């Protein structure tokens, strides 16, 4: 049985989002952010918000759009 490397241990989706947000925020806080950083931060914030929405609403939306 192959062993999974420590570094390959799965990272949760929310942790990935927080890591990405942290990268953008780090740039924004130094005042050296690219034009893209703010919009990228906005995208991550929205994705994080969607991630936290109860799945039942996504199901209702899917059912309605069918």
């Amino acid at each position, binding site marked *: 049985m192959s062993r999974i490397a420590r570094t390959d241990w799965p990272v949760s989706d929310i942790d990935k989002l*927080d890591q990405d*947000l*942290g990268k953008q*925020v*780090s740039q*924004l*806080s*130094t*005042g050296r*952010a690219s034009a893209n950083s*703010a919009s990228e*931060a*906005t995208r991550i*914030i*929205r994705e*994080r*918000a*969607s991630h*936290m*929405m*109860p799945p039942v*609403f996504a199901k*209702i939306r899917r*059912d*309605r759009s*069918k």
Partner: protein
Amino acid sequence: MKRTDLEARIRKRSSRIFETYVSWRRKIQIGFVVFGVVVAGSGEALSNMVPEDYKQYCYAAWVVGLAAAFVGGVVVAFIDDGEPEALSIANEAVSELRAQDAEIDELEAEFTWITHLYAVSQFYRELIEAAFLQGNVSPQVQKSRRAAMLDQLLAEKETLLGVRDERWNFAIYLYNSENGLLECDTCRRPTRAEEEAPHRSWSPGEGHIGLAFQSKRRIIAANTSEPEASALFDAPESKRLESDRALYKSIASIPILLNNEQPVGVLVATTDVERRFSASRDGSGSRDSVEPMRQLASALALLERLHKVSSTGATA
């Protein structure tokens, strides 16, 4: 399944159920009447043919028959639910479905508001953490941090504050101890020209911005055109502009302060739409449009304190 399809299905199905019910009801009604007539008629006929001792049974059959005919003919007719009643009940079911649908939409909007507020707060927290780790920075960098925080609130202004296509204005005013004025540090408006236009500065106690700073409390007016509000929040005559009344119909000024200390400034939001900002929820399920600004003001206060501590070496 589409809403209209679902409603049509409910109506069709309800109609079918009631058709079946009506059909059975008629069968039962006919059954009662026929049974009643036969039994009552038989009782009547037999009463003339049987000996006296048995006549009581014939009369009993006659009474039972009449009662059955009465139930079939009269009572069942009173509980008759015909096609109009069936449709009415189906319509009620559809109305209930629509009401539930609206409730689900409202719940979804509430959850969207909460999750976006939480995500934006997470951004503020990350930025403050980064600022803490970076230590002393130039005032220009500090200003860009404040702008970045305000920009993220604005990116979510429709979801969090309900601000749409209107004449809005969001600004951070900071107190300048050298001249004793609250000066515009960062301003966001729908157009660049409006943003870059000169901004008025306010003394503590002057206008709603100065009042929020001086009293260390949130100043929120849902409708500044109401006489009570205009008496309190109008700018002094010398600083008043003709456009103020039209542009600033709903205002929110939140002091930027920690633990009821002296504020470092004021976070301001205005719009030309009445009741956009309100001190209390109206009970109709609308979201608290001031809470996202309160969170930003708290985060800004913390950011400013960190900057002060790191730049002067003062204790927190």
